[in-house]
């Protein structure tokens, strides 16, 4: 059963076993507006928690997508190259950014679960 974890900077990571799928939340995509460009890291790159993993751009804004936890990039969503709008249409599904192999699953404990993130959103909007 995959569990989804959230960061305060509005990334999610959906973990299944040792790998996790990273993307931005529905709240984040709505704040950005129409996504026009996504820059993804090369497969094989190692990321440490909280560092820049990707960038996402709308017409009038650019944002960094940080690695929710440390790990190695094992796959990226190349469909976003042609269709960056997937991030808006389906952020938690086809609009995912990258897959990482987790270095330390214990780092997940510092993230929010869905309920906690929902509560957190109430404080930011």
């Amino acid at each position, binding site marked *: 059963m995959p569990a989804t974890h959230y960061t305060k900077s509005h990334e999610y990571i959906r973990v299944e076993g040792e790998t996790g799928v990273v993307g931005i939340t529905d709240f984040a995509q709505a704040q950005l507006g129409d996504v026009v*460009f996504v820059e993804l890291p090369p497969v094989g790159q190692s990321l440490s928690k909280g560092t820049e993993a990707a960038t996402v*751009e*709308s*017409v*009038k*804004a*650019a944002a960094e997508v940080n690695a929710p936890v440390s790990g190695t990039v094992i796959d990226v969503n190349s469909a976003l190259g042609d269709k960056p709008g997937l991030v808006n249409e389906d952020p938690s599904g086809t609009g995912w950014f990258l897959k990482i192999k987790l270095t330390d699953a214990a780092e997940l404990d510092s993230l929010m679960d869905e309920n906690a993130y929902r509560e957190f959103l109430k404080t930011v909007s």
Partner: protein
Amino acid sequence: MRYLPLNSEDRADMLARVGVANIDALFADIPKAKRLEHDLDLPPRKTEIEVERLLSGLAAKNVPAGAVPFFVGAGAYKHHVPASVDHLIQRSEFLTSYTPYQPEIAQGTLQTIFEFQTQVAGLTAMDVANASMYDGSTATVEAVAMAHRITKRRKAIVSGGLHPHYAEAVRTYAAMAGDDALVLAPDVFAAETLGALVDEETSCIVVQSPDFFGNLRDLSDIAAICKAKGALLVAVFTEAVSLGLVQPPGAMGADIVAGEGQSIGNRLNFGGPYVGLFAAKAKYLRQMPGRLCGETVDASGRRGFVLTLSTREQHIRRDKATSNICTNSGLASLAFTIHLTLLGDAGLRRLARINHANAVDLADRLAAIAGVKVLNKTFFNEFTLKIAGDAAQAVERMADLGVLGGVPVSRLLPDKGLDDLILAASTEVNTEADRAAFVEALQGVLSC
């Protein structure tokens, strides 16, 4: 005051509406000790007649290019600008509008930028061009910075044929950013071997053609070497008219092109404002500096244009932007576009042929003078003369004779043992009589 619509009655009414007793109440946040109690020690307002008289007096102390046989170039060129160009750029709607941030009421500016970008790309044979930089020198600085970003390397190799002011600007910016810029020694004969210098740390090679000394350079070999070593070729030009006749940088493998566009549509203006042309291969688009205009549609499906890919720029990316540029050369780029529209490909090629023909004629005539040698094997409309004597003195003495006969190389490259070199340019504005006057003046100067 003729430019201020408010009169004292208006001011009194408005102060009352604002709810303050006097104007100084609105400046209350300025610390009292720092407020100016009296007008500064500068003259009071002047009428239009007085200003015109004063400035005309200053203008009259200068010798305009059009008043004498004129052969000065070295990065800025005297060309004819059709009267319609200056008329059109003075249309209020072009002259007095801002950067087109509200595209629905700025389609005029936006479409002309789109035309400009297409023209620059076509002229240089590159994939994409931006909406302009300040001038050729700052465009070159930006090209080097862009090459650093793309290659993630920090060493630029700068040809000794690059305009010395451009090279100094590149070196200054590089030093500030902590990057390396290796500027090679002046290369009068285009003999330097740049390829041998490219290594795994080199971000780019910066080469100008026609170069500062007028030589045309084949960039193909150096492009191939750059490609093999993972470096980029930055091609520079200072004479845009040359592209009507000379192989464009894009056809020789340039990755980034930086050029001066003053020659088309813009007057000499004592050095500015000019217009920086900037073009690149499509794959480097997102690392480009400056504004870009793109085509789109409006809500009812009509074609329209907007500024686009703005996330590269300072107002969004701030310290991570590709450049700090905001204001560019809008109106000067419009002049460029209008003049190039008047010329068209056929007209530009003919203009370039006339320039070349006049320069060839001048070179042949000057080479016939005893003690004068033309050093170039190839050139477009400018070449280097070696004279038996001091070039700076010769140019000044020719000026006394009423001929502005080129630029002494030592003005830009002092203390390099190049004191006997003159750069001479001839464009479509020079007549045969002008060239004859130059020959006569130089002959006279050298014989006394």
